[in-house]
């Protein structure tokens, strides 16, 4: 007879809203440390699901404030506030965007999975004007968090792929991002949009 790891690998990346059948609620503390009304069956944990929602982060700059170098807070339409890890109220919306996930693999700890973002060179409007993506930055935190965040603060690059965090194997990682627009140039009036794509790559 042999023991065969039949489903050894799994990855989950959530940026904005995500889906789980129930909270994980496991870990080393039973019962879990936080109020967990949505624990998976018998604390056996929930199962990640696919969620195709693309959330947005935006800011509207008053005409009088355009280009005054006062960073403009951006807000998200994401409603993700509670961690699927344990149901804990981790992020605050609309100010913060949830980012988290895990990388499951068997065997000894491996190199971390890398999380990257593919960034266009600029946000553009219908008239073809642009704002460099590097005018958008973010800070990182999370309710109750201390120490370094798995997805630290950063600033978008102007086109390309940049690493924005990593996940050690078989650990849950999560942060809350607060975006802001630097507002230190005066672009033509308009609505500027751009789409970034977050990718998780396992070793």
């Amino acid at each position, binding site marked *: 007879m042999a023991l065969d790891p039949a489903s050894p690998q799994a990855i*989950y990346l959530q940026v904005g809203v995500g889906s789980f059948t129930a909270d994980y609620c496991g870990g080393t503390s039973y019962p879990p440390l936080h109020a967990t009304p949505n624990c998976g069956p018998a604390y056996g944990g929930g199962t990640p699901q696919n969620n195709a929602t693309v959330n947005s982060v935006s800011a509207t700059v008053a005409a009088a404030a355009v280009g005054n170098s006062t960073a403009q807070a951006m807000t998200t339409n994401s409603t993700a506030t509670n961690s699927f890890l344990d149901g804990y109220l981790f992020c605050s919306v609309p100010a913060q965007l949830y980012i988290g996930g895990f990388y*499951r693999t068997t065997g000894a700890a491996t190199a971390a999975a890398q999380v990257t973002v593919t960034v266009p060179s600029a946000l553009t409007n219908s008239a073809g004007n642009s704002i460099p993506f590097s005018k958008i930055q973010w800070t990182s935190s999370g309710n109750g968090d201390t120490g370094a965040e798995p997805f630290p603060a950063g600033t978008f690059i102007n086109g390309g792929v940049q690493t924005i965090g990593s996940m050690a194997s078989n*650990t849950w990682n999560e942060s809350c991002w607060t975006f802001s627009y630097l507002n230190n140039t005066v672009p033509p009036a308009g609505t500027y949009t751009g789409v970034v794509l977050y990718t998780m790559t396992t070793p």
Partner: protein
Amino acid sequence: MSAAHLRPFFLALALTIIWASTAQAKSITIDDSGSQALAPSVAMRWKTAAPARSAADNVMLGTTTIRVRINVMPWLRHSGRIYLALPAQQPGPIGLSWITQGRLLPGQVRSGNRVLVYAGPITTPFMEDTLTFEFSVAGSLMQRAVPVTYHFEMDED
């Protein structure tokens, strides 16, 4: 205290040790070649789909069914105690729990140990039961498929 006074004490101690040794039950591995696993390999899956914040809770579980048929003819019309033994083996610590149909006792054991599954008279040449095994192993140890062995032991009364 003189050496002469110590001598009887050492003698008594030695006798006690010898007596204890001869009184230990003799364990004999039982022929279970008639047993049959319904599947040759046990598919190990994560206990939980998601990991904890730290890498501390990453257990894999696997279930299989065994039709146990052990040859107890050598002990027929005697009494004995039968144990399920899970030897220490690769890839490391293994947990095994099982339920039965009633002929043998349910239980659980960690590798390197054994657990009583029957005690009493041996009235038939073979003892049969269907056991549902659940193995548990740390995912960090499960790089690839690994053989696992167990056996039944008889302690004669």
